[in-house]
């Protein structure tokens, strides 16, 4: 009885450790074949789950209708986040201001005067450098051939129509 109870417990341990709902193999055979792994698993499981309590989430999610509903909620939530996410604002790396500014705002006469007040000509240069620093991902650039192809309407045009 004890042996049976141990093996059942082992099934649960493996389930918890490798994160599968229903173990599909014979724990007794596995224990004989891999004694070292068995010991390691015992110690890991005892650290993580000293007491065994029924998992309310697991029980709830066993119901297929609830699973489908949960999946639908997650998909809709992700969709809404993607749809309504505003473009992220650039972080202003100038040392004297935490206000977010566009590159054009950084090179106005007034803004550069402020930089000068704070750090002299060095700060002015740094702010200009920041404004003219390339930002964002580089998009794919069309080759001349691709541009001409679009211009001509298709790729099968003759030399004469291209000209």
């Amino acid at each position, binding site marked *: 009885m004890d042996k049976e109870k141990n093996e059942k417990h082992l099934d649960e341990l493996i389930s918890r450790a490798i994160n599968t709902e229903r173990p599909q193999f014979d724990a007794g055979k596995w224990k004989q074949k891999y004694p070292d792994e068995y010991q390691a698993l015992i110690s890991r499981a005892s650290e993580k789950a000293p007491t065994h309590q029924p998992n309310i989430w697991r029980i709830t999610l066993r119901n297929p209708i609830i699973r489908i509903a949960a999946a639908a909620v997650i998909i809709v939530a992700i969709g809404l986040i993607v749809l309504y996410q505003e473009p992220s604002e650039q972080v202003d790396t100038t040392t004297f*201001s935490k*206000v977010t500014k566009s590159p054009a*705002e950084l090179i*106005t*006469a007034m803004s*550069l*005067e402020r930089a000068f007040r704070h750090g002299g*000509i060095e700060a002015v240069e*740094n702010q200009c450098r920041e404004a003219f620093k390339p930002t964002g991902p580089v998009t794919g650039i069309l080759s001349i051939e691709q541009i001409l192809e679009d211009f001509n309407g298709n790729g099968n045009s003759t030399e004469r129509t291209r000209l």
Partner: protein
Amino acid sequence: MKTIKNRKITKAIFVVLTLFVSAPSAFAYPPDNAAILYYKAFMLYQADDEMNDMLLRFAKGKIELNEKIREFVNKNRQIVNVVHDASEIKHCDWGLDYSQGTEVLLPPLHKLRQLLGLVLADARIPAQRDDYKTALIRCISVYKMAQHLNERPVILYIVGIAFNAVTNDCIIQILSDMPPDIEMLTWLKSQLAHINEQRFSIKPTLSWKRQAGIISMSPERISDVVHSGIDDGPFKEKVLKRILAADEQFFNRNREYWNRYMDAVEAAFDLPYPQGYAKLKKLDEELTEEFSKNPDSTLTASLFTTWQRIYNLSTRWNTQSNALKSAIEIYIIKAKTGKLPDALPGGLPGDLFSGKAFKYEKNADGFILRCQGKDLEKDEIYKYEFKVKQ
């Protein structure tokens, strides 16, 4: 019949002549606007901070010429040529939209500094092989470049001063390496006099600031000015509160206050250094005090410029330039007589900190021109050392 034919011939000649006359101006190089070439150089030139620093240090005589500098300057020869071509063009329009008031967008100033290092390093290299004339011609080009920066915005004026000051340093180095040569020194003197005729001045900047301030003091623009020109904090909050409660009268009274303030600033720039410095300092203090109790001073305080600091920079650069001009006269005497004068000749431009002549001292290496007045901001008395090659 003959008359009709003659008319046709006349028309044809007229068309051909028109095309002939207009063709050179349409396709000529260099263009008639220097800024086009400067923008071209900005796009082409790439240098890291280490190299920029090395080039400027070499130009100022802080380090010796090395292979890395020589190779880098040669690699960028075409860019140097573009900048020199630009400096020779009389007209320079940076394409700045002054209707935007203080929100006018300025050119990439960090690129200007990088180019300064390159062209001045290029100027000093010929001096290393005793080709002083080429070296000095290239320095004169940088003065002309600085003249192109004497546009209206305050920051461009400051960058222009920096250009002139570093070029002065470079020429001082070249003069120290060069055996006194009357012809060369006389040529340099006349070149500097010519540059001075198109005087690099604070006047356009003061006038621009007044006008730009008036443009910016409108309900449509003022929030942009506050956003870009003032740091976050209690002062900004107070300004925004007053602007939110403002009516047309508020703007009118603020513009009047601004005009009175700018009158006082312009008058201070015309005063001798100690009085001008004290006056600008007082104006700053008064404005700070007024802001807390007088709403009419709100926008003037928002558009605040560090005039005292700019006045100091301007005086310092002009004094250095006067020292250089005086030194050239001393070098000419040395070239003529074979020895340095025992006293400073009369009629030379003096130290603007004191309004007096420089103190002249001979030493083992050459001579020193020492200011008699103190830089009140830095609490320092400047001296300029000139070596004489025997």
